[in-house]
């Protein structure tokens, strides 16, 4: 259940002067009508604040995504280096032993 904040008196929407306020944006504290109030993670937000939060979330996701990808590439590269040296060295010595 999403809580609807109570306002002290009759207010109108910050974006629509002809509509009564239904909720407050928890970030900018502007009164919002039913059409402008968007519930997001249990709280009401106006469109600009919602867009700002979404952009921030995308940036965070993008950073972690890049970091994970970079770590994956580095781990695969390290594996390739050590396996390349270790396995090929062993095989070369083994084959030389069989050859002689």
């Amino acid at each position, binding site marked *: 259940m999403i809580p609807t904040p109570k306002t002290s008196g009759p207010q109108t929407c910050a974006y629509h002067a002809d509509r009564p306020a239904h909720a407050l944006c928890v970030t900018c504290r502007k009164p919002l009508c039913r059409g402008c109030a968007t519930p997001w993670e249990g709280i009401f937000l106006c469109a600009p604040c919602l867009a700002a939060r979404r952009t921030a979330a995308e940036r965070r996701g993008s950073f972690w*995504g*890049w970091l*994970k*990808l*970079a770590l*994956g*590439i580095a781990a*695969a*590269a390290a*594996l*390739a*280096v*050590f*396996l*390349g*040296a*270790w*396995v*090929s*060295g*062993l*095989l*070369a*010595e083994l*084959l*030389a*032993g069989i050859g*002689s």
Partner: protein
Amino acid sequence: MRDRLGLGELLDRAANLVAHELPERTALCVLAVLPWRLLQVWWAHRLIEISSTATQHGGYLISLSLWTVAALPLAFWGRAQLARGCSIALSGEDASLSRSRFGLPWRAYSIGLYAAMVAAALYPAIGWLIFTVPFVTLYSGLAAASAPYQEKPGLVAPLATAAHGFGSPRLLAGLWFTAGIGVLVAAIQLLVMFQLGLTAVQTMFGLSDVWWEQMLSLDNRLYVLLILAGACLAVEPFWIAGLSIIVQRGRARASGDDLAGWIAELAEADEAARAEAENAA
């Protein structure tokens, strides 16, 4: 409607793509693979030289391996650019790529590089079983061929993108066989070319240089390895183009684009026939 792609058709389209449809500068991107191939040659040469005492040279082997792996990002960039050029040519867009469209997005490149690095680790891990080499080579090639389409990183992503493109195992076997024969033929041609060049120089200038004869002899291991690397480099664009065709076909099948295209063709033909009938009336 969803007819199977035959090996002959695939090879024809790949050859046509590389020879006629790819812009020269995209085709030249394959030269970015050269440093990686040369380092592989040097690595193999030194490994054979120290073979009997290889395990005593752990640090040296690691440094050789490190240099080879360090050259992979550039090599993969060349391969991925080639694949991107192929994908643009296959989509029927203007092949004369503008500067902005020439570049592969960084994210797609990184996702592809991740898969290519895993393939590089798979070569020593399971490549010694010999029969696994074609599979790892296929995976490595698909990592490049599917790079222009990747949005999310994943090790099965290159295979998943191409899965619908392989009509039958025979196509895959045929592609492997043709690539193997192609490398062999290219190696023989390179050998003959160098021998002819040496003979021509000796005949024309009356030189009898023993050093060059020794260098370009099949007894010289480094020369043989370089010839093999050159042959791989010559076949590489056709291999990537072939895999790009398979990936593009797989994507069209998975998304239903091929059926949509077919329906559009039918509708066009229907429209043309109707217009013709109206004109005749």
